[in-house]
C-alpha cells in the first residue's frame, strides 16, 4: 500500500476540520518571547507551522514520523495538508498558492546571533579514547542568525475560528525551535488589510511565480529561485519567483517611490 493510501483517512478528516469555511482578511500577529531564527533571505512563512499542528492534531505523531516513507516525488495532491487559509491560483502555475503573506517583523526588529553549544559526555562513553575535537563526538558551537523583535505579522485570507484554534498549538516559529528560539508569547488574530499577496503601494508580500503578470508590477523584490507552497523546504514547488526584499526596521506600509530591481 502506498503512503498516500495509508494516510488518506486522516488527510480527508483534516480537510473537513481545517479547510477554511468562512475566510476573511486577517492579520495574525505573533508576540515573541525570544528571538526568532531567521536569516532574512528566505521569507518567514506561517503555513508550515499550521500544517505541523494539523498533522500532530490528526495523527498524534510528529510530522517527521508521519511522513516517514513518503517518497519525495509524491505529487502534491497526495501529500498536501489542509489549513484554514484559502488558496489562490496563478495562471501557468501548477500549484495552489496560499493567500498568506510572508512574516513582517515590528519596526524595532534588529539582527543578532544565537550560539548553540554541544559537548560530548566523554566520561560516560565506553570507548577508550574520545576525541571531542574531531569526528562524530566533536563538540560544537554553532551560530544561528536571529531577529529580535516584538512581533511578526502575517496577512492572510483565512478562517478566524479555526486559525485561533490551531494557533494554541503553535508554540514556536522559525528554525532551531527545540532550544528556545522563536518562542511565541501569544497570538493575536484580528481583521486586517487584504495584504496577503500584494501590500500597500503594490508591494510584493510573498514569493510568487516570476511569470505572474501581477507580480511583475510589484515593488521591492528579487527574482530568484524559491518555493511557493508549504512545506517550503520541499523542492517540488521550486521555480523562478519574485521574492519580497525585507529590511529590518522598515514599516511594511512605507511606500517607496523608486521602482524595484527585476
Amino acid at each position, binding site marked *: 500500500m502506498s503512503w498516500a493510501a495509508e494516510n488518506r483517512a486522516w488527510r480527508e478528516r483534516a480537510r473537513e476540520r481545517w479547510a477554511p469555511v468562512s475566510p476573511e482578511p486577517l492579520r495574525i500577529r505573533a508576540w515573541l518571547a525570544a528571538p526568532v531564527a531567521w536569516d532574512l533571505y528566505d521569507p518567514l512563512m506561517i503555513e508550515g507551522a499550521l500544517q505541523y499542528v494539523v498533522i500532530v492534531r490528526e495523527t498524534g505523531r*510528529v510530522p517527521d514520523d508521519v511522513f516517514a516513507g513518503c517518497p519525495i516525488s509524491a505529487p502534491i495532491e497526495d501529500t498536501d495538508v489542509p489549513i484554514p487559509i484559502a488558496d489562490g491560483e496563478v495562471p501557468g502555475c501548477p500549484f495552489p498558492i496560499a493567500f498568506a503573506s510572508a512574516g513582517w517583523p515590528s519596526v524595532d526588529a534588529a539582527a543578532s546571533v544565537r550560539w548553540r553549544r554541544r559537548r560530548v559526555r566523554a566520561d560516560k562513553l565506553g570507548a577508550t579514547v574520545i576525541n571531542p575535537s574531531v569526528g562524530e563526538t566533536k563538540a560544537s558551537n554553532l551560530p544561528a542568525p536571529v531577529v*529580535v523583535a516584538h512581533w511578526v505579522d502575517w496577512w492572510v485570507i483565512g478562517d478566524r475560528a479555526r486559525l485561533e484554534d490551531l494557533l494554541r498549538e503553535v508554540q514556536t516559529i522559525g528554525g532551531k525551535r527545540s532550544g528556545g528560539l522563536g518562542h511565541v508569547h*501569544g497570538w493575536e488574530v484580528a481583521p486586517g488589510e487584504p495584504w496577503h499577496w500584494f501590500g500597500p503601494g503594490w508591494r510584493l508580500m510573498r514569493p510568487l511565480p516570476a511569470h505572474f503578470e501581477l507580480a511583475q508590477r510589484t515593488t521591492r523584490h528579487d527574482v530568484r529561485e524559491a518555493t511557493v507552497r508549504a512545506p517550503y523546504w520541499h523542492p517540488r514547488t521550486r521555480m523562478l519567483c519574485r521574492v519580497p526584499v525585507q529590511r529590518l526596521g522598515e514599516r511594511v506600509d512605507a511606500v517607496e517611490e523608486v521602482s524595484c530591481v527585476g
Partner: protein
Amino acid sequence: MRRPEKELSRQDIPSGIKATRRLLAYLLRATVIRIDRDKIGERRYQELPNEITTSLVPFVVSERSPLGFYRAFCRRFDVDPAGGDSEWGPIEAWLPEGRIRWDRALAAMDYDDLRVVVHESPEFLSTFATDRYGIEGEDLHFDYFPDPVQSGGYIPQLPRELIAPRAYTSVWTLTGPMHHGADEKHGNVSLFRRQRVHDPLTGRAAYVPFVSGNAIRGFWRDLVMGRWFSLLGLSTRALPTHRAHALLAGGNVDAGADGAKVNNLVRDAARRACPPWDLFAGCIDKQIMGGRARVCDAVLVCRENAWLVHPVVAPHMPLEEFAAQLPVAAEMTQLRLLTRHAHRDIPESDGIQMIANKEVLIAGYQMVHTLQIIGLDGINPVTASCLADLLEQFRATGYIGADAARGMGGIALDGYTPGPGAAELPPPDLYLEDVERRRDEMIEWAMALAPADPGISTTATERPKKRRAPAEVTA
C-alpha cells in the same frame, strides 16, 4: 590636532545613542593619549588595542554609572583623569566643535546609551581611541553609522488579550549566584550570557541576562537519561559508544543519515523503548528525529521583561505598577572574583597566581521558565509521565548553569504549572512502572548493536578500512 578654542558644556552635547557613541569615542581617545608606556609596561602598551577591546564590556557590566565606568577604565590603565600626573591638566575630549572636560562629558551621557554603545562594538571604540591623531574629516564617519533602531523609543501598544500557546511555566528563585557563560570572552572576565531585548513599556533596547533553552535542554537530557540508566541498572559505558553518544548528547548526523531511508520501525522502536528519547530525540540509527519537548529560554524577572513575566509572576497587578517594582537587568549582576592559590611554596609549582572574574546573577532574583510539548493531546502518557518525573528530578537537583561544583546556580522552584489549555501531567509512577515492566525490552534496545531493520546499518563507529590487495608473495 590643536586644542579647540571653544569650551563645551553639558548642554552643548545632544542626547541619544549616536551622540554618546561619538562623545565616548573622543573621550577614550583623549584618555588613551595619557596612558604612560613606562607605567603599564612595554608589552601591555603594544597590545593596548586588544586590552581596551576586551575590557570595555566588563567595565560597563560591572559599573553602574558613566563616572564609575570611566573610573574603572582609568584605573586599569593607570591614568589620572584629574591630570595630577601630567602638565596638561584634566583630561578633555577634543571634538571638532570644541573641547569638553571629562567629567562634563560623562555628565552628558546616559548610562543606558553608554551600555548600548559599548556592547555594540568595543572594537570600534578601541580602534578610534588608539588611533591617536585620526585623519581629517573622520568626524563625518560618525554620521555614516545608521540611526539606532529605537532612536525615537518605539513603544508598541500591548495587546489586551492573547491566544497563549499551551505551555508549562515555573518561577525559579535563585538561592545562590548563577553563572551562564556568554558567547564572547573578554580577557579574564566571563560575562553572563545576554541577549538583546526590547522593552515595550519604554521602547528601549537592553542586553538582558538569560539562560538559553538549549542549555537547559542539554542539562535535562543528562538528568532524564541518567535516571533512565539508573532505573535500568545500566552503565552508559556498557553501551555501544555510538548509541550512548546519541542518548546522552543527541548523537550526530552520520554520513548518509540526512538522505537515508526514513524507517518507521526504527523510529517507533526508539520512541517506545526509551521515553526520554521521545522527549528530546536527536539522530539515532541514521534516523533524524524530533523530540516532543520544546525547552524555552529562562527569562529574568526584570523591568525590561516585565510584560513577558507579568502573567506568571503577578497576573493581578497592573503591568506598569509591576514593572516599576522590578530592578533593571543591568543592576542584577555582579562580578565574582575567583583565584587559584599560587603555591609558590611547592618547588614544582609554576608559582603563577590565576585570577578570573565571573559575572553572576545575584541570589534572590527570579527567572521564569517555560516548557512546551508538541501535540500535548496525542502524546504517549508514558512519555508525559517521564517528563513529570524529569521535572521532579530537576526540582530536587536544584541547580542550573555553570560552576555548580563551586556552589553556583542554586535555584528553588515549586514545580511547573500548566498554563491555559494545558492539562496536568500524569504522575511519574506511570513511567516508573513502565520501566519496571518493560525493563528487559528497554535494555535490549539500549544495548542493540544493530537497528531492527537489517537494511539500515548504523552501528559502525569507524569507517571500514579499505582493503588492500594482498602482497605478492615471492619465493
